């Protein structure tokens, strides 16, 4: 293992990447993105072994890819909270559930909320809130939940915050299960709407069979989110988060409004979690409380920690591994918890900073190093 990591380090992929000229980097990035879009059709032999549907009992390849990308969105969101601002959020599944439930409650023709609206305003039984309107509803609901949870609890530190957020995740799930009149309780909500699109072969554009379309949609959203997240990370806001993570008191004395930026981190994380939940619920077309167990929160945290908290590439890898590997090796399903535990312990011992740790931007300033040397020489 240590030899492997040494060999990996010997390649110095990150350094070479940064040293490469800009057109090369753009071309490389373009290749990676193109390959990602091509993945559902991957059928060239040795590579095709990564597909999950090689055996009859395997899961649908495109659906697995979709789930991977949804969890990647979750991981990027949780990375803002845990990796950058250093707030341990163990109830992230709560926001994920809120996103899924907001599209189900307002978009489904059979949800109690929509039925009540139909009766109240005398609308037809076919009426529901249009999909496009459900997106802002989901975003606002998770954002508001993030702020409501964050405003009182972000004054807590470390372990206390973890316990409160853990409780929050469970509260959302249990509320969804017990609030029969609103959420249909444990039975869940069916007929969750899908994004509108042209009909092809007599089927809706986004349907349960052509999962690769879902994958492409989610992938496009993920790329957009990564772009925005990087903008935040490399700004005054990102620096403030890092400063809070490193030493909150010193940051406050240096003029960083700690509470404000922590609340922003929480709200942004909540929004991304909610958005991922919305995609998930819409693809499933069915939302039920048992899909949002507390274990999922731990899985999300594990993605961030194993991948390399604070580094977007790292958390993407973490999300990929923890979603893909269990699907690829379904035949060893009873070994799954064991393998998961061993992997976690192994990472904690061999590579506590995560598989692809953040190189802490020291390298990014490489271009400016010349600038610095000139400046130092001026004196």
């Amino acid at each position: 293992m240590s030899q492997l990591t040494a060999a990996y380090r010997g390649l110095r992929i990150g350094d070479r990447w940064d040293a490469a000229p800009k057109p090369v980097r753009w071309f490389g990035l373009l290749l990676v993105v193109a390959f990602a879009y091509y993945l559902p059709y991957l059928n060239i032999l040795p590579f095709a072994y990564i597909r999950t549907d090689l055996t009859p009992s395997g899961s649908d390849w495109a659906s697995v890819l979709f789930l991977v990308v949804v969890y990647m969105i979750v991981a990027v969101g949780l990375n803002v909270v845990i990796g950058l601002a250093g707030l341990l959020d163990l109830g992230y599944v709560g926001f994920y559930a809120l996103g899924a439930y907001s599209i189900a409650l307002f978009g489904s023709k059979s949800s109690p909320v929509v039925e009540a609206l139909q009766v109240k305003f005398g609308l037809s039984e076919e009426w529901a809130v249009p999909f496009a309107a459900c997106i802002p509803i989901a975003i606002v609901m998770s954002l508001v939940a993030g702020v409501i949870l964050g405003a009182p609890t972000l004054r807590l530190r470390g372990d206390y915050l973890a316990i409160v957020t853990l409780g929050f995740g469970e509260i959302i799930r249990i509320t969804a299960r017990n609030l029969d009149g609103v959420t249909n309780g444990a039975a869940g909500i069916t007929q969750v709407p899908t994004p509108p699109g042209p009909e092809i072969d007599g089927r809706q554009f986004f349907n349960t069979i052509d999962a690769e379309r879902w994958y492409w949609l989610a992938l496009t959203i993920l790329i957009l989110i990564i772009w925005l997240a990087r903008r935040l990370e490399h700004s005054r806001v990102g620096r403030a988060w890092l400063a809070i993570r490193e030493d909150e008191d010193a940051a406050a004395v240096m003029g960083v409004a700690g509470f404000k930026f922590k609340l922003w981190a929480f709200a942004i994380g909540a929004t991304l979690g909610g958005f991922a939940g919305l995609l998930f619920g819409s693809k499933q077309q069915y939302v039920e409380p048992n899909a949002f167990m507390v274990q999922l929160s731990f899985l999300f945290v594990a993605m961030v920690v194993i991948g390399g908290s604070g580094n977007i590439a790292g958390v993407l890898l973490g999300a990929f591994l923890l979603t893909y590997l269990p699907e690829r090796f379904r035949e060893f399903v009873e070994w799954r918890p064991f393998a998961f535990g061993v992997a976690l312990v192994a990472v904690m011992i061999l590579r506590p900073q995560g598989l692809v740790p953040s190189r802490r931007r020291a390298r990014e300033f490489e271009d400016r190093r010349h600038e610095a040397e000139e400046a130092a020489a001026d004196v």
Partner: protein
Amino acid sequence: MSEPTHGSTVEQEEVVLKDTSDHDEIAIETTGPDGSVLLEVDHVTLRFGGVVALNDVNFQIRRGEILGLIGPNGAGKTTCFNAMTGVYTPTEGKIRFKGTEIAGTKPHKINQLGIARTFQNIRLFPEMSAMENVMVGCDARHKTSVPGALFRIYRQRPKEEELPDNGIRRAFAKVFGISRHTLEERAGRRRSMELLRFVGIADRAHELARNLPYGYQRRLEIARALATEPELICLDEPAAGFNPAEKEDLMGLIRRIRDLGHTVLVIEHDMKLVLGVTDRIVVLEFGQKIAEGTPDEVARNPKVIAAYLGEPDDAA
């Protein structure tokens, strides 16, 4: 380094105006930019349970001076610092900065008012580069928040020298302006570099703070505090662990900080340094002020000699 000097003179003018209107007692003492009262510790008492950390401490810091705060270990120097920077709230008494009561104000608000500090036990952001550490300080005067960073909405009309060289980008910047985020980042980087050069550690600007040598870390703390453009900078034992040559450098640095237009409060054990660099000295012992005056007066004060200077080798 013309920029900070310029900035602080502008603020000083505003402040003098405010002082005369709001606080008559201070207005009487305001004789000009030098010599007016910048910070006033007004009969402050601070108790932790039964322990009296500060007992009726009373002194003033005048604009443009270097004030030394000395005393034996446990005299309450750092506690006094913490009360001034918002970490503790005094049990009794008031602390006024530019005539405004600041006791109980949140630390980051106090920083915005114009007080910055360094820490006795170095508290940098270890996983950030030296330059990023200073940029966090610069950010205290910047305004970009989440919407500005995400969508680059607040655009500003750039000055001629700020326009990019590339033709298309230049035309774009002329029509749509440059976002406040970009301008602030550039200004922050430039100023951070200036400050790192000012304290003499620009050669290792891009190394992580925790990998810097001890002396560099101490200087980096000073650069970070200066980046917040404070009127009053408080240095908590800046020479701790320094050898005589480094101490000599530090004395020069403290004088240059004052020459930039900052007022300096320095806590220090090293008597040679304190006597050499300060304009006035306040001496604390067991939480009480026992002497105040010029270095000569303090050095001759029998109480001080008994409490502090009399101890052999303590000053070494």
